[in-house]
């Protein structure tokens, strides 16, 4: 059975090879001949067919028949495409029919170019690019245009003023393309007392935040699409929590619940992965990971960078728990600027 398959496979392969060679008019002997060509700058020899003009008429009636068949097939496939378009809008069949129409047309054109039209070789001399005299005369003509001017320096200086002034004037309106950088980039909707809600607008309670899982929160009644809006919320066991000195857990992380901006400080992707394996030997501690470039942050230590390209920690949002409802509230603004860094970025204190 295997042998039969192998024989079949080889048979098909041989046939394909022969068909390709025939179609492309490659003669295996010629291919070998090709290798004999000595490299380098040979001398012209007018008797050698490699070096002179020649023209051959193929007069290949078999090829002409095949060409006609290919052209008709191309037209028929194209008609199939039109019919499919009209009656059955199936993407695969549309692509297949149009693709085959084009493929037949392409095969026909290449066949015509290789086996039906006159085959020619042309030896041509290259144009000389350097025109010494014309170059010199042009230079003189250009220089002659400035003859008889006495205050050359003054005029050059004045022209420079025009150039700089006009150039500036034409460029300045481009500044309208963007607003001034300043408060806009720093502004986030978070402030003390703002409730944390989920993507559907429902408040998130402290009890919803469980270890080994993370939640995405948004400011209530604010645009969730702003970079400053989304936060990731995780619960860290209090004994493992080591926030920077001036961030007491009571004011920043009640019950060990911490919140950080969900936008990576490296290039602005979402911190969409929470690496928290359920078995010991793999990764030593939980980490927030950005899937774009693998910046990895330690949620227990103020989201300090522990791996990857980010240059600074994720900004932390201080949290509080509403004593009545148990819902999460912001206890202030972020500890630093949200998102990728720029010249005036507020790096936060971590």
């Amino acid at each position, binding site marked *: 059975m295997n042998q039969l398959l192998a024989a079949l496979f080889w048979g098909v392969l041989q046939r394909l090879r022969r068909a390709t060679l025939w179609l492309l008019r490659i003669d295996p002997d010629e291919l070998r001949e090709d290798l004999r060509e000595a490299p380098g700058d040979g001398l012209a020899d007018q008797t050698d067919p490699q070096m002179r003009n020649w023209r051959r008429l193929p007069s290949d009636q078999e090829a002409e028949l095949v060409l006609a068949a290919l052209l008709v097939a191309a037209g028929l496939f194209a008609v199939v495409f039109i019919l499919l378009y009209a009656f059955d809008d199936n993407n695969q069949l549309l692509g297949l029919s149009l693709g085959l129409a084009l493929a037949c047309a392409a095969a026909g*054109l290449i066949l015509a170019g290789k086996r039906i039209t006159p085959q020619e070789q042309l030896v041509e001399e290259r144009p000389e690019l350097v025109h010494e005299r014309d170059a010199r005369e042009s230079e003189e003509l250009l220089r002659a245009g400035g003859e008889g001017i006495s205050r050359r320096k003054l005029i050059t200086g004045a022209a420079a003023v025009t150039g700089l002034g006009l150039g500036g004037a034409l460029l300045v309106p481009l500044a309208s393309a963007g607003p001034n950088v300043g408060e806009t980039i720093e502004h986030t909707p978070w402030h003390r007392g703002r409730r944390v809600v989920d993507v559907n607008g429902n408040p998130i309670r402290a009890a919803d935040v469980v270890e080994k899982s993370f939640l995405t929160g948004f400011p209530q009644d604010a645009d969730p699409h702003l970079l400053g809006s989304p936060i990731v919320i995780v619960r860290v066991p209090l004994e493992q929590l080591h926030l920077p000195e001036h961030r007491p857990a009571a004011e920043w992380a009640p019950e060990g619940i911490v919140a950080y901006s969900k936008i990576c400080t490296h290039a602005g992707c979402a911190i*969409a992965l929470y690496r928290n394996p359920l078995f010991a030997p793999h990764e030593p501690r939980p980490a927030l990971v950005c899937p774009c470039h693998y910046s990895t942050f330690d949620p227990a230590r103020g989201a300090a960078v522990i791996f990857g390209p980010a240059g600074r920690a994720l900004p932390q949002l201080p949290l509080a728990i509403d004593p009545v409802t148990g819902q999460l509230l912001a206890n202030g603004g972020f500890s630093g600027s949200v998102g990728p860094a*720029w010249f005036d970025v507020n790096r936060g204190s971590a």
Partner: protein
Amino acid sequence: MIGWLIRWTDERLGSSPLLKKSLRYVFPDHWSFLLGEIALYSFIVLVVTGTYLALFFNPSSAESVYHGPYPLLQGVPVSAAFQSTMNISFQVPAGLLIRQTHHWAALLFVAAIVGHLMRIFFTGAFRKPRDLNYFIGLTLLTLAILEGFMGYSLPGDLLSGMGLAIAYGVTLSIPILGASLAFLLWGGEFPGSSTFEPRLFFLHVFVLPAVIATLIGLHLAIIMRQKHSQFGGRGHRERNVIGTPLWPAYALRATGLMVAVAAVLVLLGGLIQINPIWQYGPYEPWLGTNGAQPDWYLGWLIGALRLMPGFDIHFLNHTWVPNPFWGGVLFPGVVFTTLYAWPWAERKIAGDRRRHDLLDRPRDKPWRTALGAAFFSWVFIIFVAGAADRILVSVGFGYEGQVWFFRLAAFVVPFIVFLLTRRVCEELQVTETHPLRSFAGSAVRRSEAGGFEEIMPIEPGDEHWSGARSDQAVSD
């Protein structure tokens, strides 16, 4: 009819001499000369399919709720751009075919340019007088990458949004001016600026295609003026060019190649799914997925952003160099500066100011070939690092180990490639074999005593050559 048309134009434009010259324009035969043609034909497919798509696309980030035939996104808030791309894919007859063909064509366009660039580099076709055209070609490559990036950023799906977020972060990272520049380009913050989507669309469908088309025209006009370069061989000299004239054989073959490129792209567009935005969903700043990959020609930038260790340069209360600058600006800057500077550098080092119309075989310039291979392998390693997430998702190698591996490989691999390539070049020079298709070896005779003796080493051009095949024994 033809005669009438020629005379009609000639009487008005005096065009006959140019026409006659063009019909006799000589194309030397070598497969590697077709890479640039493939890029050109991909561009034509891009313009045709892109024009069609623009009839249906709505470049607006205004939010609306999706209602359409795709069930899984029913009722999800999406942008108008996303909505119209969904309509093109599910409701416009043949819309998906054209959209996927457009995307495949973009991938092939950049791939063919990169292949063409390597051909030019390794055969020394960038030397005078072709250095000028080499610079235009490099500019076309940068524009093609930018144009492709803008194109796949348009639909407003999760993948395009993540790409734009990174581009915004990289722009912010430009020292001192980054934030102003980003605000200028985006018309405000990303996301949030409503002017950005129409800007992106206008640049993608008008400004960049116009510049690219103009430069392609210039590129071809310069080739016509200088005539094609050619490989050495019998009769091939610096001062002549030997090959097939444009009319009729070459014109038919070239048109055939164009239609073949279109055929492959349409077949891909019909049969192989690409950029299924309905699976990604609309972009929201708080969403991201592991294993998301951009179009291939951005992989090297992703890789560079990923491999850079995490630090910003900050002092005096300012962040002078934020981290994405290294991988997102400096790295491509170094790569393209090296490529732009290479013809000049080689001229300086070799002290060669002559005009060159004969191409080098890569083996004949072992130093250039080895340096080039090392350079491209360096970029390639960083490109592979851009696929680390696919390796993590599909094979399960942890990303930290991968990043360390690629950081090391980016330094080590180019050296190995350099030494190996130079050795191979020298070997090929000595044996004069074709690296892919010829047999190198010697014919042996078995003596009566049972030993073997070498009759002669076989080289191409030897009269024994055509008879001696690797699968045939030479016997008495």
